């Protein structure tokens, strides 16, 4: 059973026929070639696949593509717009907020919402806000530092 899905991804209108069961993360990665959205687990624990859907951070591995019909999706590739880096991306670079880079897109997309909710989020707030994202490399220390720094610089 296939369904038409009209979806705006990073500002670009897309229309695709998809199977009911196609997950949003696979639509993004396999159909649209937006492989910045990584898949790190099966159970909605790791947050690597986090994207913004209608401005909210969501786990794209736990959303059917058909459920995203009519929505606006922003992935890591579309966060900064043309050229340059989003302030949160810049802060991750400046503060060594990544090592292997696999969890990084999900961390950054989640950080967008953390700072939208609390523009000057404290260290503790950021640690709490990242409860749905797993990093195995950094020990979180510099991720937290990056998000706090981005907030302090008015990233939201």
């Amino acid at each position, binding site marked *: 059973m296939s369904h038409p899905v009209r979806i705006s991804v990073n500002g670009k209108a897309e229309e695709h026929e998809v199977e009911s069961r196609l997950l949003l993360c696979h639509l993004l990665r396999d159909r649209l070639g937006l492989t910045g959205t990584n898949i790190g687990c*099966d159970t909605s624990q790791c947050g690597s696949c986090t994207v913004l859907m209608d401005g909210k951070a969501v786990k794209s591995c736990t959303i059917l593509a058909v459920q995203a019909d009519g929505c606006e999706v922003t992935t890591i590739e579309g966060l900064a717009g043309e050229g340059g880096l989003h302030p949160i991306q810049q802060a991750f670079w400046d503060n060594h907020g990544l090592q292997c880079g696999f969890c990084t*897109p999900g961390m950054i997309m989640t950080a967008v919402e953390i700072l939208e909710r609390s523009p000057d989020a404290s260290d503790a707030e950021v640690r709490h806000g990242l409860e749905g994202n797993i990093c195995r490399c950094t020990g979180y220390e510099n991720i937290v530092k990056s998000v706090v720094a981005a907030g302090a610089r008015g990233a939201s």
Partner: protein
Amino acid sequence: MGRYVGTSVKRVEDPRFIQGKGRYVANIQLPGMVHVAIKRSPEAHARITGMDTSAASAMDGVLAVFTGQDFKDGGCGSLPCGWLVPDTKVPDRPIVVTDRVCHVGDSVAVVVAEDPYVAADAVEAIEVDYEPLPTVVDARGATDEGAPLVHAEIENNVSYDWALGDQEACDKAFAEADEVVEIELVNQRLIPTAMEPRAAAAQWDAASEEMTVWTTSQNPHPIRLLLSAFTLGIPESKLRVISPDVGGGFGSKIFHYPEEVIVPWVARQVGRPARWVATRTESQMTDSQGRDHVTVAKLAMTSDGTFTGLDVETWANQGAYLSTFAPLIPTALYITLLSGNYKMPGVFGKVHGTLTNTVPVDAYRGAGRPEAAYLVERLVDLAATRLGRDPLELRRQNAIPKEDFPYQTPVAFLYDSGDYDRLMATAADRADYAGMRAAQADARADGKLRGVGVVCCIEASGPAPSAVAGSLGSAVGFWESGEVRVHPTGQVSVFTGSHTHGQGHETTLAQVVADELGVPIESVEVVHGDTGRINFGMGTYGSRSACVGGSALVRSSEKVRAKVLRIGAHLLEAAEEDVVYDRDTGRVHVKGSPDSGKDFGELAFAAYTAHSLPEDMEPGLDFTSFYDPANFTFPASSHICEVEVCRDTWEVRVLRYVAVDDVGKVINPMIVEGQIQGGVVQGVGQALTENGVYSDDGQLLSGSLLEYAVPRADLLPGIEVDRIETPSPHNPLGVKGAGEMGTIAATPAVANAVLDALAPLGVTHIELPLTPERIWRAVQAARAAA
């Protein structure tokens, strides 16, 4: 000191990652690519009595279903073990089993389909009949009389026995000891859980008969070697293995896995490029796992607290098969570290490598060394308690003095350099250890369970002198290659056999070469992870890349400088001894006349135009070195952790964590700190949350991230990092490994802190991880015993 080494240069690899442009294997799309999925055994030990693949084969979009016999008949060899201690009994490990599964997750059949969803459907449609066989999962229980045999031909499930040390000195120490403390402990099974699940892709070029394999490996060259010589049978000259960006490894991506054989074999069979990407569930049940020791040990000392002997017996669970380097971990990377940072004449250890119906166990961050550190550091705390001594002070009393380096331990290693007393003093100072103890006394007076854990730990990093490795059982050498290719424009490409999967080599190795040559770091590009571009390399593990890979690049850079200097002298019409190579600028000039020199770019160009070169000099500017280290390097750490245990929920709250490390000279402080921080949290994970658990019938009960508790951002309040530097005397950079020290020290630091907190309640030991329930039960037991 150059311009870059020693400074926190921002990572050059980051822009692609923060913009979602990482080149992971799962992102590879090849024209006409098919998808591979694998039927996994739900049984830990069973005979396969029947299999029906017809429904799967008949599905729309399914190209083929292959069984173990197909791979065997198709020329695939079994997976070899690359480290064999004397008399190791090696069970056969087929790519896909034919008649018997030995652990949950063993490969049973392979599906090839147009789409990963269809492949998953087909996997589900394969019906397999299993006749369950008895199982064994426990490292020590496997050797019990009458225990089920994992492989009928391997008696008592013992793959090997190994021992090292001075048994006579050890026996004497215990015979003469004033005090002896004993412990029996489990170092629990861990699941590495790199965030990127393993993946492999392959493309066969029928015209050239060349195979390209992309794999999530920490070491593509050894994988190519094993594929060529053992498993796939394609000559190395026709086989290119690429490990592009790899999303974390922590050891688990060192090894040669069945899927690296399955995917290229399938690609050739179906005549189309193929890709397999593990689900997290698959990763957790097929990536080699870590630790899993049962140990009985005792420490002998005099009444004044001088350690005199250590006697250790360990049963090391190797899982159902021997993974690529499995026997190395509990032998030459474990027993050899039992002397810790202490002067202790009578150290003796023996280990039994046992087989069980569990996922194979191999290196996981630290690999053997954390097991040694946890054991030794728990014993030292028990000794301090027995003697009524402060645990930090007792450690300082027994620490190897700095004037004793190089220090020969009773367990083979020659420690290169160190200053453990200063290390501990720095940690105590940084943590305000005295203040912590005073605060602890106040907290205890208020009825709170406050604890302070202190450790001093050793690591052997930078494997390894090849001859030593060979004598200990390695089938390969552990040198590293490094090529410095200066292009005619003066741009530099650096080819390293090391592999970066988070460590930042594209930055640190560029820092090294830029300083060696005196060129801007922007003009240095680091290439790694591709057997088609790098002649050979041994890859990254054991915190070896700076020590061994970096040293190879220093050697090649020296050769470049020597040639550039000669060209410069020639063009300046000066004698070689009258010119200098200015390493700040890369210019060659006549001594005393810096303005009259030649730029690096000019000289590089001259090397390629070859219009005017010294007599007998070949054109070009490209040097390769193969660096075989003279010794391991020996980083050390002293960590101090302060915790409070809640008196009713029995949760552990870490109040402070102070890590002071000595990793020798530091190339990039920012990156080293990041390595320490990340390592610490993995070590804390072992202490507090992580536990790989099998039921008695071999089911992996912690097989998903719903059960296996990887640390989250709020587990620690922050980590305070500091360091001292005792350079390694035997490599040109003076560096020691930085990747694993944090993990090694953190587990005992937290465990010691928690047990210190619980000491007033009479609790002396709890197995890891220190979950609230385990603490609650230990407290209840201590109360009942009191």
